């Protein structure tokens, strides 16, 4: 293995892993069990996983088509569209939460109608958590899937067209499977970003145990009074999400475009 790759890779891994080691050494392990058995922690963990997963699913449904439009269509405004899609990446999440209020809040552009017609308000519900996470995390999916689509060989799509597949069938049965590793990578990024989402969620959805308090919010609160407990909580979040990723590993690594030998 070439040293110019191996050495930076080792340095990089050390850089990413050592802080975790520091946390592990420092964590008050004796607190672990009491923390874990607190009902609020279980609730927050469950809510985090469920809402991050829902946000990822919504992002896949809405984001993969956006990526396809950016990579494959010939619309004139594509570069502006791409720039707009990256907006939530750069917006500070708290401001993102405020922006969501302006659209979906009770006085928001759209939220007003919901409230007046159906007496329904989105903020401060679990739905709001999913929306806030989706808003913040979806661009990660869009950008990485677009990259994968651009790198993929479009001639296979020609072949599908000659076999009678319209663009939708081609997308579903050829393009998507071909870029599966890219979509998987994008989904992982999106899920992780949603799982760690804090600013937009606490602003737009509030911090109600059981309905909107996700793990990062719980960690934030714990930091106020019990910093060591907060570390334990974040390690719990960490291990659960790593376990999930490791379990899914075989799936998202399934296909590689490379031949076997």
């Amino acid at each position, binding site marked *: 293995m070439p040293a110019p790759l191996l050495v930076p890779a080792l340095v990089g891994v050390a850089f990413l892993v050592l802080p975790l080691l520091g946390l592990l050494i420092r964590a008050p392990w004796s607190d672990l069990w009491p923390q874990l058995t607190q009902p609020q922690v279980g609730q927050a963990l469950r809510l985090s996983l469920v809402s991050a997963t829902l946000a990822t699913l919504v992002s896949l449904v809405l984001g993969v088509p956006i990526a396809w439009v950016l990579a494959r269509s010939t619309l004139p405004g594509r570069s502006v569209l791409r720039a707009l899609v990256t907006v939530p990446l750069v917006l500070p999440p708290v401001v993102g939460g405020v922006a969501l209020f302006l659209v979906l809040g009770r006085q928001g552009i759209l939220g007003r109608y919901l409230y007046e017609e159906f007496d329904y*308000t989105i903020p401060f519900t679990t739905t709001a958590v999913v929306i806030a996470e989706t808003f913040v995390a979806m661009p990660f999916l869009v950008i990485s899937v677009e990259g994968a689509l651009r790198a993929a060989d479009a001639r296979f799509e020609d072949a599908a067209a000659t076999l009678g597949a319209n663009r939708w069938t081609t997308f579903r049965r050829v393009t998507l499977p071909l870029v599966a590793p890219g979509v998987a990578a994008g989904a992982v990024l999106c899920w992780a970003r949603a799982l760690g989402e804090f600013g937009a969620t606490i602003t737009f959805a509030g911090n*109600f145990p059981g309905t909107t308090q996700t793990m990062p919010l719980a960690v934030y609160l714990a930091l106020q009074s019990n*910093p060591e407990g907060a570390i334990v909580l974040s390690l719990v979040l960490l291990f659960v999400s790593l376990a999930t990723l490791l379990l899914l590993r075989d799936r998202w690594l399934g296909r590689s475009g490379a031949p076997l030998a």
Partner: protein
Amino acid sequence: GGSSSSSDAASSTSAAASSSAGGGDLTGTLTVFAAASLTDVFTDLGDQLMADNPELTITFNFAGSSALATQITQGAPADVFASANQKQMTVVTDAGLDADDPTVFTENVLEIAVPPGNPGGITGLADFGDADKTLAICAPDVPCGAAAETVFAAAGITAQPDTLEEDVRAALTKVELGEVDAALVYASDVQAAGDGVEGIEFPEAEDAVNEYPICTLTGASNPEAAQAFLDLVESDEGQQALTDAGFRSPSN
């Protein structure tokens, strides 16, 4: 622990008296929006109120006061708002969302927090003018920073901080980790940090007392329970709990 904690015998007797005030007939759901620094005290008080009123459910929404103020002005379903400063309460009252005038239910004063053993050899407020020391104070935009500016002005010290923290908690974390020699924080935070930090009181703190206002809101769905919670916080029992957490009773 923090040296500011004090317990006076009077409040512990009145705590027993006020516990019967609830009467156990409150029902429904009570939603309290409270500054994050109140998490532990309010959670305990809430548990107590729920124990007295089995039909009552209390949900808390703890966050930064400014986030809470934004949420309330955006129509959040809140019955009670307890802010960590007057400024964010003003945001709510300016919007006309307060059902009655806010009252100050507790106060907080600044204290110097140093790592255990005081490795930086901090003795008083004057050390904040020493550029060789690693020091944290709050940013002027947040209440503890405004208070810090006031005390430094009063003491005639030009502060030489290395960082302007966005909240007290962030400053305290750095003290706990031994990464700064001292930070200017609230007494209640020193108390909450337990053995992690040591507190040093200083006289100029009285020039910048931080007041916590509380009020019920116009949109309250459960005004009776809201009032009961307010009463509990202002009762001797509530005040004792706050005092135990390092806050102090309003001076007026």
